[in-house]
């Protein structure tokens, strides 16, 4: 179950990905909620997911901008701005946004990823108009004082210490991403590099804000006890009053060259609890793939590496007892790229090299022999069920559509995901395994508690970046 919980999360993440089925979907009988969509005159996209079971709503605004859109040298500015959005506007004093939501009986928060920045409130249906007014207000009227900026910068530095500096596995993760992407900004962490975060200032934040925050670069998603007509009326009276920004350009970020050699990172850190092995492969995403490849990659990784029924778990944990845990997944949600990831903790007395060789042997076997029909069908069932379970939760549904739309998927594609999965054959899975499990497109990471654990040490100690 320890392994499983990891796998489960990975699975939930994958559910957030979007399908690229060539034709409109929802032709099958998978239970789902009806979704309405329309556009405001200023170009703001709107999606409504009615669920009348409880008198509450989830209101989200997604901007088509994330950390990967940052200019070089100001890493972390997308996320820093997201924090600063909770400061003041002409109408609201600093910090009053969240306090107002709270007084109204609601909860609010926000998050930033490489491709998206999203703000959300969960609140009673009666307050929808109020939170829309406030969210529309801060879309264009943000005011920042030097003092607010300076204090909040200390907060994000503490956030980086909590998430990364205190956690060697997170440090290794950053190093691996930086090695995986040689040109694309996906190689820079969302939270930013420490030395650049320390220099972020008010001008950096405001310039990023003015460039990217506008109704025609945003998606409104409302899920819960509300009708599309109600949302349209409220949206036209709030977001609809904001002029479009004609300078918003389609996102066009550096593309990745075809890599020519595998990269390896060995890191020694006494704070690591156990030796750990990780492997990432660059892969296409649902947005960049040849139709059907991303679905096949999702299913490939479910069968091979996710959960206790997977090939790797069965062979390495159950049968050969070479690993304490092993798991893997395909992350296909990115606008410009996807990733295949595998991680394992060796059993006591087993070297990382030995475990890595075994993982490579299993991958080679999958490339040669493919996966069984039974395992593929089971994997489809698991993912389609996850998709169905999401209809119980309005926030999950709001996020499902948000993650998809923000990288350019359509509602039909998102709704068509179960059907697109059903179409994947064992031949498809074998083909994508051969195409994308290419060691030259990969990064392998070793994390060791001490030097002595590292076979062929020496190159290892330098991997640790500057801290704090």
């Amino acid at each position, binding site marked *: *179950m*320890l*392994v499983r919980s990891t796998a489960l999360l990975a699975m939930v*993440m994958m559910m*957030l990905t979007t399908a690229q089925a060539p034709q409109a979907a929802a032709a099958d009988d998978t239970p789902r909620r009806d979704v309405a969509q329309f556009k405001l005159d200023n170009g703001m996209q709107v999606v409504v997911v009615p*669920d009348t*079971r*409880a*008198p*509450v709503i989830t209101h989200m605004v997604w901007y088509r901008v994330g950390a990967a859109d940052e200019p070089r040298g100001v890493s972390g500015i997308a996320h820093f701005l997201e*924090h600063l959005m*909770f400061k003041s506007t002409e109408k609201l004093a600093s910090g009053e946004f969240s*306090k107002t939501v*709270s*007084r*109204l*009986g609601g909860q609010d*928060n*926000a*998050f930033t*990823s490489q491709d998206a920045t999203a703000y959300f409130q969960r*609140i*009673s249906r009666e307050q929808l108009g109020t939170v829309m007014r406030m969210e529309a207000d801060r879309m264009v009227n943000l005011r920042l004082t030097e003092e607010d900026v300076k*204090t*909040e910068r*200390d907060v*994000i*530095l*503490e*956030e980086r*210490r*909590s998430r990364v*500096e*205190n*956690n060697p*596995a997170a440090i290794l993760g950053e190093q*691996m991403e930086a090695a995986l992407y040689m040109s694309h900004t996906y190689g820079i962490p969302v939270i930013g590099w420490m030395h650049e975060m320390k220099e972020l200032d008010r001008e950096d934040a405001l310039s990023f804000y003015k460039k990217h925050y506008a109704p025609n670069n945003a998606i409104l998603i409302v899920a*819960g006890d509300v009708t599309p007509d109600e949302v349209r009326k409220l949206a036209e009276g709030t977001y609809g009053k904001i002029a479009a920004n004609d300078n918003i350009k389609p996102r066009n970020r550096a593309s990745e060259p075809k890599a020519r050699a595998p990269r390896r990172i060995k890191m020694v850190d006494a*704070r*690591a*609890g*156990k030796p750990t092995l990780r492997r990432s492969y660059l892969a296409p995403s649902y947005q960049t793939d040849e139709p059907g490849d991303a679905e096949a990659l999702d299913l490939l990784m479910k069968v091979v590496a996710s*959960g*206790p029924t997977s090939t790797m778990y069965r062979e390495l944990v*159950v049968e050969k007892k070479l690993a*304490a845990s092993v798991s893997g997944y395909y*992350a296909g949600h990115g606008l410009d790229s996807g*990733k295949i*990831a595998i*991680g394992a*903790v060796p*059993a006591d007395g087993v070297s990382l090299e030995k475990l890595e060789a075994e993982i490579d042997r299993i991958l080679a076997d999958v490339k040669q022999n493919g996966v069984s029909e039974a395992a593929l069908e*089971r994997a489809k*069932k*698991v993912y*389609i*069920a996850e998709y*169905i379970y999401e209809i*119980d*939760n309005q926030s999950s549904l709001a996020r499902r559509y948000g993650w998809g739309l923000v990288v350019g998927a359509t509602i039909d594609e998102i709704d068509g995901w179960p059907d697109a999965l059903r179409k994947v054959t064992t031949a498809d899975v074998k083909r994508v395994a051969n195409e994308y499990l290419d060691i030259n497109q990969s990064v392998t990471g070793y994390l060791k508690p001490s030097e002595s654990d590292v076979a062929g040490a020496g190159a290892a100690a330098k991997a640790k970046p500057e801290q704090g």
Partner: protein
Amino acid sequence: MFARSMSVSTCLHRAALALTAFAAAAFISLAAPEARAMKIQVVKSPGGIEAWLVEERSVPLMAMRFAFEGGSAQDPTGKEGVANFLTVMMDEGAGDLDAARFQELEEELSFRMRFSDSRDTFSGSFQTLTSNRDESLRLLKLALTKPRFDQDAVERMRKQLLSGLAFAAKDPNRVASKVWAATAFPDHPYGRPSRGTLDSIAAIQPADLEAYRKRIFAKDTLKIAVVGDIDAETLGKVLDDVFGDLPAKAELTKVPDTKPVTGGVQRVVQMPVPQSVAVFGTPSIARDDPDFIVAFVMNQILGGGGFASRLMEEVREKRGLAYSVYSYLQPYDHAAIFAGGVATQNEKIGESLKVIRSELERMAKDGPSDEELANAKSYLIGSYALRFDSNAKIAQQLLGIQLDKLGIDYPDKRNELIRAVTVEDVKRIAERILNVDDLIVTIVGQPVGIPG
């Protein structure tokens, strides 16, 4: 532990309240749908097993939550962590199904079955699609009544648990919580590590798992909540099918009532991390104390979730000393604590703790302002409905209400209880709970300027 793309690459504005160290599944965080009536039926099976049911036929799903009294407080001495061990063994084979086949069926039938232990309960979460309900429930029953504990599966899970302990030993958050509990409750089950130690996990045998299961999985302490696509009559049969074969009576070891040590203790655990993690707490009041709701409101003002709390304002918003700072009430069955946490770079953790102490003192001395109380009440009352917006969440709430013995009308009464709280009430309870001289603090890291 491994990067999970979105979850790792996403940075939140505010951390979710980090309650894992202490969170009892049972602790209900109070919420009531005011605008729409929710009909809770008490279903009694032909065999006499009771469950609370909310029928919700609009989605073809059913969510069930259930719990037995027990939890890690019932782990025998020397076998600490056995309850937690059992939670990971529940789908490792049962009846005629070995682990591999059981887990394949779990996927083929697409049901979700998870078990967890708190200090006082062993609980289960089960969700199924209507289309696979009967067969899925058959596997739940097998897991509860005929788990196999095959030696091979036990050894495999043991390795994973030991590996988990090795990671936890280097995780400042986990260490801070563990040391806090050990400091607060010496010589009491609540002071022991609920996930066990390297020695205790190494010592646990299949017979220990089975002994725990037999003692704890019993009908007299069982509480069940079901929400979803099922009617009362069908549920009655399900209850007998799934739980009917369990023993009538649990064999619980007596756990004495206790209190965290008083007098003020501060412990520092050195760890080479740039940011110190601190956990703090004092004795508090029980869930059945007439003032519990008052204390709950007090905590909301002081350090409860959201940006509106005093700790958030003083530590983060004004001074930028932390990303996350919080407090909460944890009413266990046999002790009650007020606790909280903060993480700040080593050089400034002393300042964070000083600010927190002075906020606790200020609340104890002066209580809240009228405005703070009004704001906290309107948040708590308004947001209650947010706890009831999915089958799974409603089931969780209804189980919590049963475990806390609050009565089936609690969702209707709860907001009235909040409304009735006065400034004087909050001041009185703050004075009673927030004794900074009794504060137990554990700090993990390389704190500067703090003796230890």
